[in-house]
């Protein structure tokens, strides 16, 4: 029984449906936000912000490439991603080769290579450009799953702490003080050693360590909002706590959640690189920028120099993180123009 369930889960249709469902949820949330007046005003301001718009475009581009890799279609030997199909023509070489080179890197023997590689190949002969694009999936999966964990956790606990105060606040503060006082890298490594390696467990670990910042922020903002007269009025007319939280408080702090999520995404992607260096990164065989950078570390000491691997990964990583940061800044400006 469990076997068939496991097999059904692994099937490419369920995996694709999950991804589409994820996107749909985000879309629905954004639409819900669009009904909010504050958000509408912010959108008007955003449209005039050129830098922010470009950044949004770049982020969407990355999302698109990542989606190409995440979505799977059936093939002869199991399912492959759309990106795989697109690049199926590119062969695997034996080992390193320079971008657009005709021979393998090992100069002594001049072995010809089969295909044409725009960004060269890595140690096992895989095309670097393809790896770089496939790594979008890893970054998006980790970023997405982690956000799915820490955003609800942090926002909800923050609102609860800020609104109810007293013992609820104390308990939540105790929990996050304890968690925050452990050096983050140690906690990550410890959790990963227990749960084992993998994109899912990495997301869980990053989620557990990441909700504290958001919680604090939302807690502060909720406390400020709670002082406002409209909350007191709501209490006065007898609205339940649950309604106040969901109808009034949450929507009014959501803009902060959005900005945090966008900026947090960039930090998560950067963190993945560090975790790879420490040896608790993505599993073997997964394409990831962090692994490429880590491999690049030793490759730069080679003679002849192998620079294309680390350069490709850094550029891709930099592009995404920069775009996210600029987008976050633009959002901040859009929601609160006084604080430019």
């Amino acid at each position, binding site marked *: 029984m469990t076997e068939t369930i496991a097999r059904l889960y692994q099937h490419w249709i369920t995996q694709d449906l999950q991804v589409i469902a994820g996107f749909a949820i985000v879309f629905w949330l954004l639409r819900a936000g669009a009904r909010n007046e504050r958000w509408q005003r912010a959108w008007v301001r955003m449209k005039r912000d050129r830098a922010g718009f470009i950044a949004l475009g770049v982020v969407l581009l990355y999302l698109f490439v990542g989606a190409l890799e995440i979505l799977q279609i059936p093939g002869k030997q199991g399912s492959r991603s759309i990106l795989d199909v697109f690049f199926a023509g590119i062969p695997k070489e034996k080992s390193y080769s320079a971008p657009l080179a005709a021979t393998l890197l090992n100069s002594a023997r001049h072995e010809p290579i089969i295909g044409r590689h725009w960004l060269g190949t890595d*140690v096992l002969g895989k095309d670097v450009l393809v790896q770089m694009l496939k790594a979008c999936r890893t970054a998006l999966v980790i970023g997405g799953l982690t956000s799915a964990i820490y955003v609800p956790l942090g926002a909800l606990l923050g609102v609860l702490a800020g609104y109810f105060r007293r013992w609820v606040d104390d308990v939540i503060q105790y929990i996050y003080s304890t968690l925050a006082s452990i050096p983050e890298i140690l906690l990550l490594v410890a959790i990963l050693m227990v749960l084992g390696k993998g994109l899912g467990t990495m997301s869980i670990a990053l989620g557990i360590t990441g909700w504290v910042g958001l919680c604090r922020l939302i807690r502060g903002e909720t406390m400020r909002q709670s002082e406002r007269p409209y909350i007191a009025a709501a209490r006065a007319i007898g609205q339940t706590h649950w309604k106040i939280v969901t109808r009034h408080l949450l929507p009014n702090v959501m803009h902060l959640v959005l900005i945090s999520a966008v900026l947090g995404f960039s930090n998560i992607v950067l963190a993945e690189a560090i975790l790879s260096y420490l*040896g608790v990164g993505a599993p*073997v065989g997964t394409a990831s920028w962090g692994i490429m950078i880590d*491999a690049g*570390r*030793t490759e730069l*000491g*080679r003679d*002849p120099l192998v620079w294309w691997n680390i350069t490709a990964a850094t550029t891709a990583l930099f592009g995404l993180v920069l775009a996210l940061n600029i987008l976050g800044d633009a959002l901040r400006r859009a929601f609160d123009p006084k604080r430019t």
Partner: protein
Amino acid sequence: MMPPSRALALLLLAALIFSGCDNDPNPEPYHKTRPDGSPWRVRYGGIPGDPKSFDPQFAYDEVSREFIQHVYDTLLEYHPMKTEPVELIPCLLAEMPKRENHPDGTVSYLCRLQPGIHYHDDPCFPGGKGREIVASDVHYILQRIADPKVESPFFAILEQHIVGLHETRQAGTKNGKFDYNTLVSGFETLDNYSFRIQLNGPFPQLLYWMAMHAMSPVAREAVEYYDGQMHDGKVRPTFRFYTVGHGPFRMREYIPRQRIRYERVEGYRTSVFPSDGFPPEKAEWLKQFAGKPLPLFDELQLSVILETIPAFVLGRQGYLDGITANKDAFAAVVTSTGELTPKYKARGMELEKVVTPGTFYISFNMQDPVIGKNVKLRKALASAYDAREYVEIFYSGVAPVSNQLLPRGLFGYDAHYIDPNGYDLEKAKRLLAEAGYPDGRDARTGEQLVLSIEEPVSGTEERQRAEYEVRLFEKLGIKLKINENTFARLLERLEQGNFQIGSGTGWLADFPDPENFFFLFYSKNFPREGANYCRYSNPDFDRAYEKMAQMDDGPERLALIQQMNKMLADDCPAIFQFDKAFYVAAQPWGRWTHNSPVIEGGFYKYHQVDPVLREKLRAQWNRKPLWPLIALGLLLVAGFIYAVRWNQRNHV
């Protein structure tokens, strides 16, 4: 803004700091010249880790041995130049031990120490002067090995052979404390320098043990003095991290995780530079050192360098006396024919091949229901493994691919052996079909065969290797699930038997005897007590092993070894990958005098160095070009002026 005078001062300060910079990371040597006016000779080496201990009866790992060998000599040692075959020569002993066979089957060895060898001067001795090494010191070694507090890993092995060692631990330990008045009955002191060791039966490997630091004499005074307790207001170091030796060097400084420095001891006479056994290509050059007193240089600086790239970089800059060709340095240093690349040859370096008696193999769990019962499946996997291509990608094609259990250089190694389970992809696919999994799918259910493989993954290199190995096996159409482990966890899983295929298993022998390798497949050596991770159990193999372990080298032993090789090939409990060998490019001023540091041994004392040549070449290799700085300075100034000017324009 900032007054120009202050800016100028800052610039001058920066320039001053910068000019004092150079990229030499080594500290100044202890002296500049020897007493006789010739230059002070220093050698610089790199070690990939910190030592676990300096206690010879406790340290059992390669890194600690690297630190101990300069300070403690051994009873016997390996001839520094003879490697095919290796030869043991006396070191602390005056001559090779005499073997005595007794009618009841027991064996004993009669040994005599060199008179007049002293421990180094140290405050633990009365008057601070080191005393002479005597036979009772060797007895003290055996007592220490029996002492449970010392936690000596050698006890388990030696107690099986040396008479009375096991009883000594039982009788002498009360409440965990060992009484050093308990004597080892198998040890007989004949006079100040002579002693006899009594064994249960033939144990020719004892001579190899005497070449290990496990049996290096230590002074009882030192062990008792350095107890780690407070005396007279100061805490004394523990003997685990303090040396009072008798070797050619004395430890002067040890900064953990940074470096360790040794200085030569005056009056060392235990060994001199040999006069025979010179390899022909170096014989002319080596003649100048024949018979000279050791060591040939004065100071040794070993830096702890944990990562491989800095070691390579420092070697290239001339701050280390050798470049170890690891994976990234390989293509740069070694050509595909096993020679030095032209770039490094032009520098005047020399390539040395270091062969250690070790081998890597992939283990199959013979007790696993899928793999352990299906010999054709194992053979299929073995035939799918292309060690040659692996070595080509990761080692430029020069690490020796192994096709049998024994590594090169050992008695019993067959240079003409052809492995029946060698690489043959077609044959592998055929065997897989015969095993019940045509094209990787189960013949009955059509399911793809999924096997799990344990990989030690603790760095980029290992990650890439794991990926490559999996790719090799997946050519058969099966699917491999990689279990990434740290080395400790890998060992745990191997010991628990919680695996199907275990990669990264290997063995570095303590001494060049085939018994040390076939031991790995002996059925009485199952984990957790032993290292037979494959859990291979074959009574015929066991019988052959027991006979062969006690024999001396000869045609009979060879026949048994060949039998055992055949059994291993038939049952295929493991895939043999390659031997542990690596290349070192020696700097032109540090040509190697010895052949290779085979296993244990104080080979460093035979090293030489030419400091004058080193200074010259270092300066040449580390020139500092100034143009980038000038360019940067101009750029900064220009940018600053532009920014100020532009701002004035806009904010007037």
